[in-house]
């Protein structure tokens, strides 16, 4: 279980009288939790705090009782996906996925990467350069990299905002599969209620750093 206990953060440019944000949250493995809220409410900050890209001022963060705060971003069992810029455009799909592999890239790693791409329906695009892929395909390559990393926590920061309606609908089952088939704990920031309704087990609302269950 992913646990955040009063994980606090103050934006460097916040006014002195503004209280710091304090996030508390519990999310089970094999579930999808959606987080929505107004712009500037702290959604992306929350994702980056969990991923280790920002340092909290106080509080606790753990996964299955393992304290994550001493770990640097790259060593946490966490994958973070953004709305865009998730891939290196000059690399092939499989090379992008292989960036999620720790250690020497051998045949076994390459096969695992190709399998992850196949799981995402991209078996025919293994060698395609990332910039030749559509927006939806690029997001699937990024998800395949998540599978290869065997991350137990997947953070999706508005993953569907840049996609058209059809591609968005096709991506929903893939996110669901991360939880159902691979046992991941998925936290998904989104502005779109359709995303929440389609994939989330639990819907949370974030406002001024306070998380609440959406009615």
């Amino acid at each position, binding site marked *: 279980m992913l646990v955040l206990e009063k994980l606090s953060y103050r934006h460097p440019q916040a006014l002195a009288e503004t209280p710091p944000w304090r996030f508390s949250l519990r999310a089970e493995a094999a579930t999808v939790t959606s987080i929505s809220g107004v712009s500037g409410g702290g959604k992306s900050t929350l994702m980056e705090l969990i991923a280790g*890209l920002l340092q909290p001022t106080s509080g606790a963060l753990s996964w299955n009782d393992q304290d994550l705060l001493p770990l*640097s*971003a*790259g*060593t946490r069992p*966490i994958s*973070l996906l953004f709305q865009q*810029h*998730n891939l290196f455009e000059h690399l092939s799909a499989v090379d992008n996925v292989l*960036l999620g592999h720790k250690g020497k890239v051998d045949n076994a790693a390459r096969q695992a990467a190709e399998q992850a791409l196949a799981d995402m329906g991209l078996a025919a695009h293994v060698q395609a350069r990332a910039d030749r892929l559509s927006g939806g395909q690029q997001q699937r390559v990024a998800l395949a990299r998540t599978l290869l990393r065997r991350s137990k926590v997947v953070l999706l920061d508005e993953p569907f905002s840049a996609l058209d309606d059809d591609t968005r609908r096709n991506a929903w089952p893939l996110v669901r599969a991360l939880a159902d088939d691979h046992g991941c704990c998925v936290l998904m920031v989104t502005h779109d209620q359709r995303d929440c309704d389609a994939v989330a087990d639990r819907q949370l609302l974030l406002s001024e750093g306070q998380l609440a269950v959406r009615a």
Partner: protein
Amino acid sequence: MQRPPLHSAWPSRAAANALPGLLLAAGLLLLVSALLILLASSQPGTLHLPNRAWQTVRMSLLQAGLSTLLSLSFGVTVAWALSHRRQFLGRSLLLSVLSVSLVLPTLVIVLGLVSVFGRAGWLGQLFSALGSDARFPLYGLGGILLAHVYFNGAFAARQLLTQLEAIPAEKRKLVHSLGLSPWQRFKVMEWPAIAGSLPTLATTVFLLCFTSFAIVLVLGGSPRYNTLEVAIYEALKLDFAPARAVALALLQLSLCALLVLLSNLLRSHSAQISSVDVPHWPEPPRVTAVQWSIVLFAAAVTLTPLLAITVDGLQAELGRLIADPPVQRAVLTSLSLAAVSALCVLLCSVFIVRTQVALSAPRQWGECRFAPALRAGIGFSATLYLAVPSLVLGLGFFLAARQLPGQLSQWAWAALLVANVLMALPFALALLLPPAQKAALRYDRLADSLDLRGWQRWRVVEWPLLRRSLGQVAALSFCLSLGDLGVIALFGTADLVTLPWLLYQKIGSYRTADAAGLALILLALTLIVFNTIPRLFHRKYP
């Protein structure tokens, strides 16, 4: 079926936008072509290359190749280190020096390098104190390479740092969240961000070093290290052999034109969105140590010559120098020439950029089959200086002046002005074109729909978006002109003396103290102008 143009005023509107720039570019091409034809026909039947010409070409290619390699290596390493070391005392100063390096007067920096790396310089004294006889070989290839790296390495570092800082924040977060090593990060994220601009940068640096004049003249030490540019100067000024000078000039022109064509082919149009507020993550201690070492090395190399110029200059009799009428005349001449040049560069670059933007707009010219040829022509005229070095141009003016009525010094003004404008134009366009294209892409449709045109369009749309870049263009062209020692080396007389020419004369007559004082005055003028002019173009908010 052919689509009708979107605007009823087409094509008159498009032509009106493109015409001034096209005429200007054609005028520049015609003027330069006329001078070159004059050059070629001036000594019919007597054109011959001296025996040493090919050795000079070989040496020019060798030093330019090595200078380019070293400058880019310096640039890449320093840009990489600075992109990771974002906060430290003196970072802004270091960045300012890197930015201003290209426009610093060559002779002044050469004097600074002599003070630091010369036989009796600071480094030599340090070696002596340590009991070593080792000295940096400043006169010869070593000195030429050092000076070229000072100017071009710093220029490359500043350009590449901009590219690295433009990497989207998401990409930085991604590599960090993937736990990539510093080497992997460089390979997948940083190298691709700069690799696209390296060929163009390399060709520009190569051309600048290939046609290097003042540095080779002062630090070359012997004819063995002459570039073609210096050989032309020597043929004309020392041996008075115009036929040899013309032959060398034509050889240089052919080689440079080839390189400019190559440069135009390699030009990249990549643009990234600037990242903002990227947090800084801790690096492994070993990597941090390497980055700090590079930053300290870059600071030592770039700042010590400036410090040496200041220390030496303050020891000169500055009061007497400033009160000296020839110095005052030289300052006045240099400032007037630089101001007129800057104004001409501003006008030329605005007209040419507007034409380039108009010719690139598919809505206006997309269906005109001449548009690509016109674009290529105007692009070539803009990079003309890189193909026609100022000394070659000066030689053309020199020969024209001998055939025309009037005194040589009257023609010298025109020659200096044209050479200064052409020298600054490629850099001015590089600064102005990207924001102009961005402005057009963003606001053209809106401006058309509101029927904004002419002066109103310039005032409402272009001026607010381009004013900052125009300030940079003005400062750059002013400073380049202020410190130039190219054409003036051919035309300099007792009546026409610029500050760099006066400085060169003082060095030549071993008036070391006066030279140090003049160098400080020239450096101070350059730094003041480079920092002041852009402020005049900034918007003042209440």
